[in-house]
């Protein structure tokens, strides 16, 4: 059974790139345009991992990570931050919130698939 990855980004084109990379590697993909919409999708369905942007309207990526970690069913769901932010202070913020990895855009699909495979075991 294919693993399901929740992709959260306010850019439709970015979500499309991530979708193409992950579906090409055999994953199922769910999409959300911001943190709040993503949280609404954590409704009991199987989500093996999340790939999340930082700067988004309504609810940003850090807020999403913190909120997702409060949900018992998704407490241990690994979250990869995929962002244009490369500052160490931001990375520390993501780590403190509970993210498992940090990748800076633009990313190579091979690099993303490799990181997802590592986190999704």
């Amino acid at each position, binding site marked *: 059974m294919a693993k399901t990855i929740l992709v959260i980004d306010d850019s439709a*084109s970015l979500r*499309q790139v991530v979708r193409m990379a992950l579906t090409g590697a055999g994953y199922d993909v769910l999409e959300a345009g911001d943190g709040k919409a993503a949280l609404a999708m954590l409704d009991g369905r199987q989500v093996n991992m999340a790939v999340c942007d930082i700067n988004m309207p309504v609810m940003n990526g850090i807020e999403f990570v913190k909120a997702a970690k409060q949900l018992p069913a998704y407490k241990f769901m690994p979250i990869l931050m995929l962002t244009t932010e490369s500052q160490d202070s931001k990375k520390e913020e993501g780590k403190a919130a509970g993210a498992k990895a940090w990748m800076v855009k633009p990313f190579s699909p091979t690099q993303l698939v490799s990181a997802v495979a590592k986190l999704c075991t």
Partner: protein
Amino acid sequence: MPNSPMIQSNDPAHSSPASQSLTELCLGVLPVWERHLATSRSQSEVAVTQMLKAFADIGPHIDLAERQSEQITEALSQCDAGVSGLTRACERVLAPVLADPLLPAAAGAAMGEVLVMVRRAVDALENIAKPFAHETQMVAEQVDRMYMGFQYQDRISQMMALIEGDIARLYEAFASDGVGAPALSDWLVRLESQYAMTEQHQDHQAKDSGDSGNDSNNETTFF
């Protein structure tokens, strides 16, 4: 920004004609710039999304070509069942027959000729398959580069959105005749605090990035 030092407000009644016309100019021009930026950002998003959709249709065909290339490589493997091993297998099977002193010379010559034909056919197949495998690999590498290229739209969009917002703030400052507008230093600090990308900081500080403006440190960090 309640603690920010304010620009000295100008009483419109006492503004110079030059100052008034400059304000009118900015009030007229800034919204136009803002709309141009918004349209450009929107159009680039639509264009990239359309390209990605088209690319999504091509993707499965590229994947299929890659798989076929792997199958051909497998079929051409050196094992006896593979095409490349065929010549050797034929030679091995026919060796005792060819070594038989009772074999008529004409039969031996015919078998030798058949072996040459098999060898030529195998060589021809290998010569077709090798470039195909190379081309398929090249296409896969270029696909990765295209995926990365598409992502620059997101970076550009973020930069333009920030400028749009700042133009709107500047418009408000002009519209209120500077009342409540922060000092330049505070304005710039606020603007810089919203940057996400290295090149934005470099541009802000007028530093030459020396490259096309992408964060070179794109290794994955695992926590």
